[in-house]
């Protein structure tokens, strides 16, 4: 009986290894293209946030369930990762003087900026802006 189970385990191991071989080949081929740095689009904001402890974060992408939407939570958490120790607040961004606005559409950016009565402190690439609501 034990021999039967050992044989099954051996067979399953061989199957598992052969199922993984396309993945291994893909991995070796893609070694030239490692994972992009996390939060790269926000890194240019760092010098402007060195004296700031908290800021709001707005992503203009519409979503029925933003907390489960990786297209919203992903950039937000990437921004939090790369800009720490600044605390970014996604849920109450209007409560802060400094706000990071991520929006690829410049018209929508203008609408949001006017609503917040904010000026642009830094206009970065990939639709990322740092807004200042202070005087």
């Amino acid at each position, binding site marked *: 009986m*034990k021999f039967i189970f050992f044989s099954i385990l051996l067979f*399953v191991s061989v199957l598992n290894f052969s199922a993984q071989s396309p993945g291994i080949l893909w*991995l070796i081929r893609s070694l030239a293209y490692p994972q992009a740095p996390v939060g790269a689009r926000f890194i240019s904001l760092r010098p402007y946030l060195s004296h700031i402890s908290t800021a709001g974060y707005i992503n203009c992408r519409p979503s029925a369930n933003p907390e489960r939407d990786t297209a919203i939570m992903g950039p937000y958490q990437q921004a939090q990762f790369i800009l720490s*120790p600044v605390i970014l607040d996604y849920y109450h961004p209007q409560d802060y003087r400094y706000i990071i606005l991520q929006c690829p559409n410049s018209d929508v950016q203008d609408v949001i900026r006017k609503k917040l009565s904010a000026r642009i402190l830094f206009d970065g690439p990939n639709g990322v802006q740092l807004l200042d609501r202070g005087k």
Partner: protein
Amino acid sequence: MGYYLLRIMRPLRAMDIFLIPGLGLGVSAQIVFYSLLFFNRISPPAIIGIHLTGLLCLWIYNQYFLKKGPPTVWGPGQLGAVVVLLAVAGLAAALLAFHRPYGDWDGWAYWNFHANFIFRAGSHWQRVFASSMQGRHPWMLPCMVLWGWSFDGRESTLVPIVISIIFTVSCMGFLVCALKEYVPFYCAVFAGVFLFSIPIYILVGTSQYAEILMAYFILTASVLILDLLRHPSRNAAFLAGLFLGFAASSKDNGIMAAALLSILVMSCLARTTGSRKLIRPLAWGVTTIMVSVLIMKSFDALNVGNYAYDIFWPGLWNPQRWSLIGDCVWNGLFDKPWGMLWPIACAVIWVFQRNWREKEGITLVIKFLIFYFFLYLFIYAASILELKWLLDVSYYRLLYTLVPTLIFVMFYILGSREDERV
């Protein structure tokens, strides 16, 4: 540091090679945490100074006051076989890890985020509890990363990568070397090969998640408990307690796993008059590490304002929730990433009951696996979070932490003789 500490507790054996990284990094994480509390910031000179002083003291004690134990004995070709297996696994782990230098989502969004924040925030490190990524899980992994960055002097991606590779390979190495003490060598190596063949093992191991730490510490704690029951001694009890504490400090789930294992082993020890005296050193071992977890949780509770896990009691009696959980469990049994592990393991445990029912040690570990799994199903049913999402993101990680221990149990049952005592 792990090497010298382990030598103080007992003569080294083959499996201790792979206990050393866990013990060393675990102790270093504790030193980083307490230095953070004492200096109110990460102080690399202090951390390096404490480590060098500790190393020097341990070296002196080992060199001049400790009797040298007998050398570890390997059979012909055994060491070579283990080295080859681990070199191949290490190479695969390194390839995957360096391809994803920031790890998977939770690797950078949670674990490395905490390390980043504390490293950069100076004396304002407590503000990490105010972030939306609340510091709910214990900080063993971030403290290990901070330890590496203290020596490196910067927040390099290399440190978390190397830590993930160390634990992925050490877990496999420990599985083989620990099994070698109970089953024929070919069986032990086969267990390592089978673990390596499971697609999800190295993938999650190199994701820079705490799951690989928890999997490693649950396996090591379980084997040390078996060892304790086989060769009872105060040092063995303390060592088992330490690794239970490390399991608890890896993740919140680890606290539950360590508590369950502790209760099972203490009730087992309490049943035998001669073994009752081992409960205290075991408890001391757990407490030594749990203190840091309690301190961290206190900071979290003070900053968040409350520490109640919301429980949705009616969920326990909701048949729709149980149906969803049942579907998830059933589908997970035959899911490709697990490589048919679950149905085979369940079949082995069921068919060969005679091989383990009379052996207190392995029965204890099997009970732990079963109780822990079903306890978590109840937690899922009673959670206030959206159940489908929760199962999608966390169920496979729950199972992952049990994989090495389950494979140990499976190959123990298949390889050990029926007249074996433990």
